[in-house]
């Protein structure tokens, strides 16, 4: 993962979830946003004061190798945009667009694995390294540089937690949301590894929510491989289980998983089992962070 301020970034598409404010915020934050790609609008005008091209390869012809693309096209065009980026040699993809059909994601992830491309999202607000780079739509106002790495699957809840930390004078080293969709690219495990190696990060805050088994996987990985202290918060412990067919429970039994699989309870239990403190509410997180930092 290349997250240095000099890494070159493009935006593919401009949907409802990315506004002129977001683009301005990224530029103001120092992100090296070189161009936008929006088929049919190439060369016509400067969108959000970015030069706009029809194809990713045209950007590369003009500006050289691109490190990261932020994809905000219509959900049905995400697969194509991502494949175009991969074909143009881009190996870091952040997908903001929500609503991507999951079978498109399956196809993209097969290709991403084959080409060793990092895919963050879909339905992710992206990555912020406070004071250094903003890749996505996370509102930088809630962030300040510091020692806490935030890993999340949410959008607004992520900012909520960053805000609590900042208000408690605990700055952040990085904040990543892997996306709240059922099928997403990068996993908590990949990011735990990155954060464990990151020199700035001293504590990791893991923010989970019901669905899938990513928090459970993370818990197993934390006990096995992570030396830094981890604090968690799981939203939805009081929410009634949403039965996605045979994702929660039934399919789980078949493929040898716990029947509780996918519930917030299962996630809390998995984290408790590896002695990761789990906050009861976002405002409790700073307190737990301070406790483990000592």
């Amino acid at each position, binding site marked *: 993962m290349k997250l240095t301020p000099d890494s070159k970034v493009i935006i593919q598409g401009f949907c409802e979830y990315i506004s002129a404010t977001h683009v301005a915020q990224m530029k103001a934050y120092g992100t090296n946003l070189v161009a936008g790609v929006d088929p049919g609008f190439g060369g016509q005008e400067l969108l959000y004061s970015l030069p706009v091209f029809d194809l990713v390869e045209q950007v590369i012809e003009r500006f050289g190798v691109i490190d990261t693309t932020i994809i905000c096209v219509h959900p049905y065009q995400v697969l194509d945009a991502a494949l175009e980026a991969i074909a143009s040699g881009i190996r870091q993809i952040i997908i903001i667009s929500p609503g991507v059909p999951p079978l498109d994601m399956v196809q993209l992830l097969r290709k991403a694995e084959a080409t060793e491309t990092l895919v963050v999202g879909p339905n992710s607000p992206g990555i912020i390294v406070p004071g250094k780079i903003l890749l996505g739509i996370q509102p930088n106002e809630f962030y300040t540089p510091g020692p806490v790495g935030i890993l999340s699957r949410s959008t607004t809840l992520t900012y909520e937690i960053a*805000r609590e930390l900042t208000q408690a004078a605990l700055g952040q080293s990085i904040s990543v949301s892997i996306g709240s969709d059922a099928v997403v690219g990068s996993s908590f495990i990949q990011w735990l590894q990155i954060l464990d190696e990151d020199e700035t990060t001293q504590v990791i805050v893991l923010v989970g929510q019901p669905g899938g088994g990513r928090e459970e996987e993370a818990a197993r990985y934390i006990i096995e491989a992570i030396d830094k202290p981890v604090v968690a918060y799981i939203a*939805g412990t*009081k*929410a009634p289980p949403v039965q996605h067919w045979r994702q929660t429970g039934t399919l789980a039994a078949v493929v040898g998983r716990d029947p509780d699989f996918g519930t917030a309870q299962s996630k809390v239990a998995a984290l408790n089992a590896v002695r990761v403190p789990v906050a009861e509410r*976002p405002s409790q997180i700073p307190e737990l962070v301070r406790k483990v930092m000592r």
Partner: protein
Amino acid sequence: MELLEYQVKEWFGKIGIPVLPSQRINHPTDLKRLKISYPVVLKSQVYGGGRAQAGGVKFVETTIDAIATAHNIFNLPISGELPEVLLAEAKYEADQEFYLGVVLDSAVCRPVLLGCTEADVEWESAGDKMQHVVVEQEFSPFYARRLALKMGLHGVLMQSVSAVVEKMYRLFVEQDLDLIEINPLGIKVSGEVMALNGSVNVNERAIRRHPDIAEIAKKNINRYTSSETIRNLGDWDGIELNGKIGILGNGAGSVMATLDLVANAGGKPGVCINLRHASPIETSITTFSSRLEEALKNLAADKSIQVILINFLSSIAQTEDAIEVIENFIQQHKNEIKPQFSRSNGNKNRRDGQSPYLVVRLAGSEFNEARKHLTKLQTQSDTLIVLENLDEAVAKAVSLAKPTTYKKLSLNS
């Protein structure tokens, strides 16, 4: 979105999965023009399981018998639902019955093939009996053979079962399904296979790229209307609970965290709505503010809701529009309250005519102006509370939700 059996079987027939001759019955008298020879099975076309146990599947031997039975099935609600259509199908004597399925497993981010040499397995105890194969790379028929072999099949049966799985997978991908099942797949000693019942779940996000499915969805949309529009809108986009505090937020995690806070503070969360996304089966284009407007209208109309807790933290598209929606809502309900209060004497329904409280939590610089503005309105309104701190907003919402003065009136009176 589920499809009905007869719709699924049309797909099966087209793609070459063996199905029995069958006929759609819109009215019992249609059975006079039945082209299938007796004995025939009549099946209620309803969503959800448990149809056979509820009496929705009957064998009939004669036309008279069939018409009478059809009348009964048309009038038999199953899980509260009356069938609009029956399916009349030839009877099949299977020597064995299998289960076959393809499902998207979000934990491994891949489709999984499922197979069992028993039908109607209890899922909770299926662990040993149910076989599965993860479709790691692009599907190719060898994945289906792998499943059939894991099921313990050999020779011709292994090939005919894997050929069915191959076609199920094609449907799964072509139609963007979350699930496709054949349960049961009838097996004859001769090796012949027959899809006796089938079900599919279409992924709701993909519906709009399949014009024929979108057409079905448009008809089905009535099943999701009124208070149900705000329920179960895709992945965690809305949750319907029975409490008195309705929650509106931006993002599933944020809404769920708010819900937890309310519950932990002793409150009873009601309908919770994530305004970040439109319903995937929504046909018209929506904006954040239009979704907010719709949600406020629905919550206000819901008499069980005493408090609406709005939790917004920056990064909302068109902040001004959203605030305007809240303002209009307050203005409108301020005007309503006065005359309604005067008429509410002696009204048995406590909430009738009274607007719910609106607790608005706004944080982030984006809302600085709006917060000031709404705080001004607060002084003129009986029902509006504006706060910046989330925990405080939750505490306020919980304290405003008073206990109801009557219980289950309609059932006991």
